[in-house]
């Protein structure tokens, strides 16, 4: 894939071409966390809707999906720490200036709800008959609704988490990333649901998946031309390839969902495509941020332009 060079390479000065910012300390696990957190949030909302509208299979699949994916995402979050055994130090403070602290509390609110609703679905019949089982079953609905109420926070705060950094590709994208991420969450949650439930119950999952995919692709498309030089971090290299595949899979999955109608095989394939597209989106955005720290041009050129514009305005 050759890039068309639209503008001449920007002239800038640097210290031996070395990067100014540090490469993020995070690895692929954070991208995986972003994906699984979104998937869990999308599923929890779908599960609550299914519960309220009497779609038991969709409810079950979505609640279990929300539980499994939030457990996976928590594993990645803790494993990526430099000192995983100190993960609970996050609970020492509640700090509005730190999106990670806010995220910790959002997840702390969301986790038990999603967990209880998921556990209720997984309880063996034997356990359901005693008083604990009955209590859990009775609590499953409020727990699921609570999870659904906090899920939009889980799906959207991760965009602030990335943007609230000095990483050019993440910071400059702050008006768009939340929409990319919530769209991606809906697409993946819907995708999972429609893959695993009978066609008759898949309607809401399909509608959610298509609307989410549309939001994700639209926000992602709107973002690129509006980022100036930093857009190059998204439109070149590994980030570009990941996001291109993401778009192909997401659009393909959405089209399959719409035209596939009630054919089960098509819905399964489309659901898989949406899940993969959502995952690749997160990995692509993550990689774009990493790339933007590794070339000093993303720091020097926009900042220099800003200073030049300011001094021109003051003259």
């Amino acid at each position, binding site marked *: 894939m050759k890039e068309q060079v639209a503008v001449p390479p920007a002239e*800038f000065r640097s*210290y031996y071409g070395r990067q100014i910012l*540090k490469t993020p300390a995070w690895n692929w696990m954070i991208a995986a966390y972003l994906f699984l957190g979104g998937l869990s949030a999308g599923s929890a909302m779908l599960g609550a809707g299914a519960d309220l509208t009497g779609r038991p299979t969709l409810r079950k699949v979505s609640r279990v999906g929300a539980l499994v994916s939030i457990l996976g995402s928590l594993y990645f979050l803790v494993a990526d720490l430099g000192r995983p055994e100190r993960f609970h130090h996050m609970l020492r403070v509640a700090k509005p200036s730190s999106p990670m602290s806010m995220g910790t509390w959002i997840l702390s609110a969301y986790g038990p709800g999603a967990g209880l609703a998921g556990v209720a679905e997984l309880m063996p019949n034997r356990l359901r008959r005693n008083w604990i089982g009955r209590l859990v079953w009775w609590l499953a609905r409020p727990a699921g609704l609570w999870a659904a109420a906090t899920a939009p926070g889980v799906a959207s705060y991760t965009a602030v988490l990335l943007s609230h950094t000095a990483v050019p590709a993440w910071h400059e994208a702050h008006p768009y990333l939340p929409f990319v991420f919530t769209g991606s*969450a809906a697409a993946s949650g819907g995708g999972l649901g429609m893959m695993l439930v009978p066609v008759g119950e898949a309607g809401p999952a399909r509608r959610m998946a298509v609307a*989410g995919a549309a939001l994700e692709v639209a926000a992602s498309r709107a973002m690129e031309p509006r980022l100036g030089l930093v857009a190059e971090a998204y439109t070149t290299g590994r980030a570009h390839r990941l996001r291109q595949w993401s778009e192909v899979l997401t659009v393909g999955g959405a089209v399959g969902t719409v035209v596939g109608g009630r054919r089960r095989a098509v819905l399964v394939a489309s659901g898989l495509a949406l899940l993969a597209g959502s995952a690749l989106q997160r990995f692509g955005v993550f990689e774009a941020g990493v790339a933007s720290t590794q070339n000093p041009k993303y720091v020097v050129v926009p900042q220099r332009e800003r200073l030049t514009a300011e001094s021109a305005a003051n003259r």
Partner: protein
Amino acid sequence: MSGNSFYGPLADPAGDAGYDERHPPRVGFFTDTSVCIGCKACEVACKEWNEVPDDGFDLLGMSFDNTGELGANSWRHVAFVEQPGGRSGVGEDLKAPVDLGMPELKQAVADVVGERPDFRWLMSSDVCKHCTHAGCLDVCPTGALFRTEFSTVVVQQDICNGCGYCVSACPYGVIERREGDGRAWKCTMCYDRLHDGLEPACAKACPTDSIQFGPLDELRERAALRVEQLHERGVTEARLYGHDPNDGVGGDGAFFLLLDEPEVYGLPPDPVVPTRDAGAMWRYAGLAASALVGIAVSAFVGRR
């Protein structure tokens, strides 16, 4: 907390962080690179005093700089820039070397070493900026990073869990997670020495007083005077970096006198604390969350 807790000029960061009025005045570094001789005594003194581990012997091929950058194991970093002639900015004319007030090069020495080279050397000892609005401190989710009574920014190593958020939040690329240790490390401005009324090790070791330590107000006055002096002597390229409380980080606790653009020394020309846009970010996130609610609700409404 005040109106400018997250962004903008802030007279007293320690007071804003909750220390009562008996806290000491804000201290800082003024690094006057025009008298830096590149001896790296600051790097050595810092490593010795703070027991910062060795990070390997690496020849980088960048003049005399084999440290490369600030990081978990380098809390002072001396940059060496070699430039042709007296050239400073791009396109400027060659200028004769100017007297910077350093001990003079005797004619006899000039006879021995021959002609003055058509060359100039920029040397600068970089350090954590101890920002008025510190990105690292703002985002730290454990409270490990804190504002000291001296208005400096320090990591509590018994609290840090190595989440790595500070690494990405620093607009200068200073703080870093230490390999094999997992926690984030950076300059503490020798917090332990400050408690005993001592100046930080790097400033103590600096043989030319390129690194000056003291109350920030005094340093800012001294720096303004120094720039004026240099301009009078014809060093028109002398400029301060990080001194302005109206800049993107509310001014640095460690600021510099540079002889060229900041990016030439590996410094960002116009750094901004990410927290400046926190409000906007959460508003966009709120809108996106609402959109998600809309999508989910409309998926169920109406149809079976």
